C-alpha cells in the first residue's frame, strides 16, 4: 500500500472515531482525553494538552498527555489575544516562529518550549475562542506539513465543538434540575397552602375539626390501593382537602346547627358541592378534575345524590373516592348530637350502601388498605392512627373486613337498576 494511501486511511479512521467519541454521551473528561489521543495518534505527536477558557480570561486544563498537568498553571488569555487567534494564520501558532507568533504564544514561549510544545491552536466555536490545544513534536522528527495543519485544524475544530456541546448539555441538565427543584418547591407550597385552606374550611364547622385533612388522607390511601399513579394520588388528596370548600358560602348557623335542619336549611347546605365547583373551577390546578370531585362528592350510584342526581358511570371515580372518604369520616367521628358509630356498624353501613351510595370497588379497596394495616402487612398505620388507637379493638375486625371484601368483589353487578 502506498504510504499516502495508508496515511489517508489512518486519518479517516481517526476522524470517524473522533466523531463517534464527540457524539457520545460519556464522561466529559474521558471524551476530551480520548479525542486528544486520537489527534496525537493521527500524526504521531508525542505530547499534547487541552484546556478550555473559563471566566475572566482564565484557562482550565482538561487533559494532558506527555506533559505535566501543571502546564496551564497561571496561564490566562485576554480578549485581545482571543481576537488575534481568530485572524491569524495557522503558521503563527508555531511556538518556534518568534517573528510572527501571536501575543499569547510569545507570552508563554519559554514555558511551552520547556514542555516540548511546538504548536498552540485555538479551539474556535461560532467565531469564539473556547479553549486552546497544545501539541508537541511529531515522532518522525519532521516539521508539521500544510496537510498536517489541515488535519490538526479539522480535528481541533471537532474537539472544540465536542467540548462546547458537552458544556451546553451540562447547562441544560443543570437548568432542568433547577426547574425540577423549583417545581418540587411549588408543589410543596401548593400542598401546604391547600392544607392550610382545608383547616380554614373546617374552622367554619365547629364539629368537624380536621375533617378535610382526614378526607384527603383517606382518599389518597384508597387511590393508592386502586393502583393510581403518584400524580393522580396527589391530585385526589388535594381534592379531598378541598371537597368542602363550598361550605364557605353557606351560613355558619346552618352548618353548626345542633339539631335536625329543616328543608330550606338543608337545601342551603346542599348548595356547597356546586358552590365548591364554582370556587375551584377558575383555578389552574396542577392536577386534573379537582373541581368536579368537589362538585360530585355527594352524588350516589343510585341517582339519589346531589347536586345533579348522576348515576354510577356518570360520576367521576375521584368523586366516588372522596364520597366514601367523606362518609367514612362522618361515621367514625363524634358529633355533639351523637357518638361515632362502632366499627361493626360502619362496616354494615358500607356493605348495605355499596352499589347504592358507594362504588363497591372503592369500598373494597378501602377495606383492603385497612385490612393490610390491621394484619400488619404494612408498617405505617395511617388509617388506624386517624381512627384512634381504641377504635379498632376486637378480634373480629380482620374478619369483618375480609367478609366485606369477599362480598363486594362478587356483588358489584347486583345493584344496578337506578332511576
Amino acid at each position, binding site marked *: *500500500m502506498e*504510504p499516502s494511501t*495508508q*496515511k489517508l486511511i*489512518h486519518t479517516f*479512521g*481517526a476522524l470517524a*472515531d473522533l466523531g463517534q467519541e464527540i457524539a457520545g454521551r460519556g464522561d466529559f473528561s474521558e471524551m476530551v482525553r*480520548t479525542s*486528544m*489521543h*486520537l*489527534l*496525537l*495518534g*493521527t*500524526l*504521531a*505527536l*508525542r*505530547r499534547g494538552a487541552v484546556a478550555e477558557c473559563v471566566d475572566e480570561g482564565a484557562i482550565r486544563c482538561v487533559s494532558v*498527555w*506527555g506533559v505535566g498537568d501543571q502546564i496551564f498553571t497561571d496561564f490566562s488569555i485576554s480578549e485581545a489575544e482571543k481576537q488575534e487567534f481568530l485572524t491569524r494564520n495557522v503558521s503563527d501558532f508555531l511556538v518556534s516562529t518568534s517573528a510572527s507568533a501571536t501575543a499569547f504564544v510569545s507570552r508563554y514561549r519559554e514555558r511551552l518550549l520547556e514542555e516540548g510544545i511546538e504548536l498552540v491552536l485555538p479551539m474556535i466555536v461560532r467565531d469564539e475562542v473556547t479553549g486552546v490545544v497544545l501539541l508537541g513534536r*511529531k*515522532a*518522525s*522528527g*519532521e516539521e508539521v506539513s500544510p496537510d498536517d495543519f489541515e488535519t490538526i485544524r479539522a480535528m481541533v475544530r471537532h474537539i472544540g465543538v465536542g467540548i462546547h456541546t458537552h458544556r451546553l448539555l451540562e447547562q441544560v441538565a443543570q437548568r432542568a434540575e433547577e426547574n425540577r427543584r423549583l417545581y418540587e418547591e411549588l408543589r410543596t407550597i401548593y400542598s401546604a397552602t391547600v392544607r392550610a385552606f382545608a383547616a380554614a374550611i373546617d374552622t367554619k364547622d365547629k364539629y368537624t375539626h380536621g375533617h378535610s385533612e382526614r378526607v384527603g388522607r383517606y382518599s389518597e390511601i384508597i387511590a393508592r390501593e386502586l393502583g393510581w399513579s403518584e400524580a393522580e394520588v396527589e391530585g385526589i388528596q388535594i381534592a379531598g382537602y378541598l371537597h368542602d370548600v363550598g361550605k364557605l358560602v353557606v351560613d355558619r348557623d346552618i352548618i353548626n346547627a345542633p339539631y335536625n335542619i329543616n328543608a330550606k336549611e338543608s337545601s342551603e347546605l346542599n348548595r356547597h358541592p356546586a358552590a365548591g365547583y364554582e370556587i375551584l373551577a377558575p383555578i389552574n390546578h396542577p392536577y386534573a378534575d379537582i373541581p368536579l370531585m368537589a362538585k360530585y362528592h355527594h352524588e350516589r350510584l343510585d341517582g339519589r345524590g346531589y347536586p345533579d342526581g348522576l348515576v354510577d358511570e356518570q360520576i367521576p371515580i375521584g368523586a366516588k373516592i372522596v364520597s366514601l372518604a367523606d362518609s367514612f369520616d362522618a361515621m367514625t367521628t363524634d358529633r355533639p348530637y351523637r357518638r361515632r358509630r362502632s366499627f361493626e356498624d360502619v362496616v354494615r353501613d358500607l356493605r348495605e350502601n355499596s352499589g347504592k351510595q358507594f362504588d363497591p370497588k372503592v369500598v373494597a379497596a378501602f377495606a383492603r388498605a385497612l385490612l393490610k394495616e390491621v394484619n400488619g402487612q404494612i408498617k405505617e398505620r395511617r388509617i388506624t392512627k386517624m381512627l384512634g388507637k381504641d377504635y379498632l379493638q376486637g378480634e373480629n375486625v380482620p374478619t369483618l373486613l375480609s367478609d366485606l371484601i369477599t362480598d363486594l368483589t362478587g356483588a358489584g353487578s347486583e345493584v344496578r337498576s337506578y332511576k
Partner: protein
Amino acid sequence: MDNTNGSLVRSHCVGTTAVVYASDYLNKLTGEKIERECRRQLDGGCHALVIDFSDTKLVNSIGISILLGIIDVAEKSGARIAFSEVNTQTVQLFEMLGLTRHVVLAKDEREALLVLTGFETTPIVH
C-alpha cells in the same frame, strides 16, 4: 513472572527485560491496559521492554498515541524498547509515523530479547 490477572495483559520477565503481549486490536481499552502493564514493569525495575505484536492485526490512532506514551516513559527512565512480530501493514504505519525511530523492530520475541539484552532465551509458549 506471568501476569494474567486483573489487567488481562499477558507479560513475563526475562532478567530485567519485560515482555508484554499486545492483543488483536490495539485501541483505547487494550492500549491503556498495555500502558499500565509497561509502567508497572518499569516501576518494578525493568530496564528494557519488549512489546510483542504477534496477535495484533490492527493499531488505531489511540493505539499509536498510547505507544508513544510508553516510548516516552521508557525513554525517561532510560529503558530500551523493542517491538516484536509486527505485521507488515503495522510496520508500514509505524515507519510512516516515525515510531521506528524510537524503537527496535525485531522479527520475533527471541530476536528482540537478543537485541536488547544480548543473550538467548528458551522459546516461550503463550
